[in-house]
């Protein structure tokens, strides 16, 4: 190290490394607990009541390899960022690293469960997270010039529409809209979910378009009753994009994605124009659309019926309600039971039953599995981590130096916010349950990759801002 000047060491991202320390310990601890918990459960099934603890049941180093690999990758990314992007935000990576680490552990833990029955689940999730970290670094290097994103905004919009078209064709080909894979594209062994990339394209397009037409949109010269609406000519391309996306997801029954995209649209319109009246107007339209959708589509009615179930009062259920809870609302009722059995501190990692009783516990319903095993305290901590990610994202947006970067950072952060709210509220029966992944925790390659691309863009924006600040000072 003698040849290196003190520069790299002084610029080293010590804060990030320090913040990564506790996540590393947490991940190691859980990895140690997992085989012990599995042993404990198998002993319980043979009616052995008191099992003594001996050091012999502690896992060996070989058993810890998945988590050690993830730790090495996070440390390597920390080092890489220190040398090439020392000024990028230092808080995001530890937060995201811990969440995706817990996601890998959950996949490892849920893989062998009877309803999942996929022993390679954890290994694949680990591979996706490692690949995601790589993609995150690649995004940082590729986005040398943010204007490049802005200039080709119609290209991004076109790519988005292309993804939509591919998804529709695939859905029509599969025909069975109830199969969980009808929104995926299969390239050999890879199952890609185009909607994950679509959300990024939509935000980039909205950010570029709104930052260019901001003056006109804030004036709002088109009057409709008491509401001042933005001129239709300026809003046209955005509405078109929105319409296509919404139509798609209503046609192929992706209610969650339709909600997500509409949420992104409203929050970005508000961020770009600062007018609450647009948001209120948008919400009114949404209520109207929702009502039409409710009347037209049976599957939406079923999901709303599940929300109105009174689970606490289950003893007084009529036979019809009991039947409904065993068919249409089976997943959500089992999820609620899993959440409730977690209690305050949870039953312990690897000891829950969500994987055996709740369908798709590894992706859509992961929040209930987490709730059962980590308890209310653990869920609060996880929500806290999400809040800190959101805070950091909006902070990066506020500090960014130009409008496009601001809108882009805020829009991308809003994706996390809306997605988390939709799926967490869905799991807890506050909203109709929809099939979108919980960022970083749910199993799924496309979602992990897309989320790491978002983190890469956010880190790059924060790095650019800090560089500009340093240049001016």
């Amino acid at each position: 190290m003698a040849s290196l000047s003190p520069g790299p060491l002084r610029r080293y991202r010590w804060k990030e490394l320090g913040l990564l320390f506790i996540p590393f310990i947490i991940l190691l601890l859980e990895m140690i607990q997992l085989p012990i918990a599995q042993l404990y459960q198998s002993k319980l099934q043979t009616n052995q009541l008191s099992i003594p603890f001996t050091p012999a049941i502690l896992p060996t180093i070989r058993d810890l390899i998945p988590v050690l690999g993830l730790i090495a990758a996070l440390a390597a990314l920390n080092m890489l960022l220190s040398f090439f992007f020392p000024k990028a935000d230092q808080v995001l990576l530890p937060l995201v690293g811990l969440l995706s680490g817990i996601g890998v552990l959950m996949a490892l833990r849920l893989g062998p469960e009877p309803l999942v029955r996929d022993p390679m689940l954890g290994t694949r999730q680990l591979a996706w997270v490692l690949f995601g970290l790589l993609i995150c670094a690649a995004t940082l290097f590729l986005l040398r010039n943010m204007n490049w994103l802005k200039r080709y905004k119609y290209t991004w919009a076109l790519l988005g529409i292309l993804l939509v078209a591919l998804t529709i064709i695939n859905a029509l080909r599969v025909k069975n809209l109830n199969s969980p894979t009808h929104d995926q594209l299969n390239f050999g062994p890879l199952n890609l979910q185009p909607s994950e990339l679509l959300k990024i394209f939509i935000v980039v397009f909205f950010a570029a378009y709104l930052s260019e037409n901001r003056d006109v949109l804030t004036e709002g010269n088109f009057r409709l009753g008491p509401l001042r609406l933005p001129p239709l000519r300026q809003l046209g391309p955005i509405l078109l994009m929105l319409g296509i996306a919404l139509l798609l997801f209503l046609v192929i029954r992706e209610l969650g994605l339709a909600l997500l995209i509409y949420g992104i649209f409203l929050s970005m319109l508000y961020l770009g124009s600062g007018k609450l009246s647009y948001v209120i107007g948008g919400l009114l339209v949404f209520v109207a659309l929702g009502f039409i959708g409710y009347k037209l589509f049976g599957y939406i009615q079923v999901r709303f019926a599940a929300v109105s179930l009174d689970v606490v009062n289950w003893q007084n259920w009529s036979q019809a309600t009991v039947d409904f809870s065993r068919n249409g609302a089976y997943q959500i009722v089992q999820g609620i039971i899993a959440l409730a059995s977690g209690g305050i501190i949870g039953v312990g990692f690897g000891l829950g039953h969500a994987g055996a009783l709740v369908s798709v516990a590894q992706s859509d319903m992961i929040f209930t599995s987490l709730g059962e095993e980590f308890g209310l305290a653990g869920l609060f901590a996880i929500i806290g981590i999400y809040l800190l990610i959101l805070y950091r994202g909006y902070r990066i947006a506020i500090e960014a130096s130009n409008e496009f970067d601001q809108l882009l950072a805020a829009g991308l952060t809003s994706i996390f916010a809306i997605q988390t709210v939709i799926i967490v509220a869905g799991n807890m029966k506050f909203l109709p349950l929809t099939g979108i992944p919980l960022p970083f925790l749910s199993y799924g390659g496309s979602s992990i990759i897309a989320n790491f691309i978002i983190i890469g863009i956010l880190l790059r924006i924060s790095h650019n801002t800090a560089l500009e600040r340093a240049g001016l000072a």
Partner: protein
Amino acid sequence: MNLDVFLLILRLLLIVLLYLFLMQVVIAITRDLRKTAAISADVAGKAPPVVGHLVVVDSGPSAVLPGTRFDLQPQTTIGRGPTNTIQLTDNFISGEHTRLWFRNGVWYVQDAGSTNGTFVNNQPARDALAAKLGDIIQVGFIRFKLGA
């Protein structure tokens, strides 16, 4: 020690570690905020100095009165948009019309991609042009004189 006791200890340890991590992040963020607050207080204390003026000599078709003085900062932007240092509401001025900057005692003028152009002594300033005191700078159809 029984295995369930050991598992209970691990469970409690996990919760404690999770909240320690959250606390550590919050402390790091608060420290960050204090630092940026101190920096922005520094910047706010020093309002950008006025290093020159533009005086309207010919208002063209706009409503700006001839003789109006605009303060120039070391980095000045002129345009119709609300983010510009000098905001002119005239139909012939683009959202971001002209950039002026003061370096080593010389003013530089460059068009910022406007529709109706920027001129220094009737020369189009598509690339950065140096301007002396007393030069005529035309932004759209409004003509200014550069003054100290």
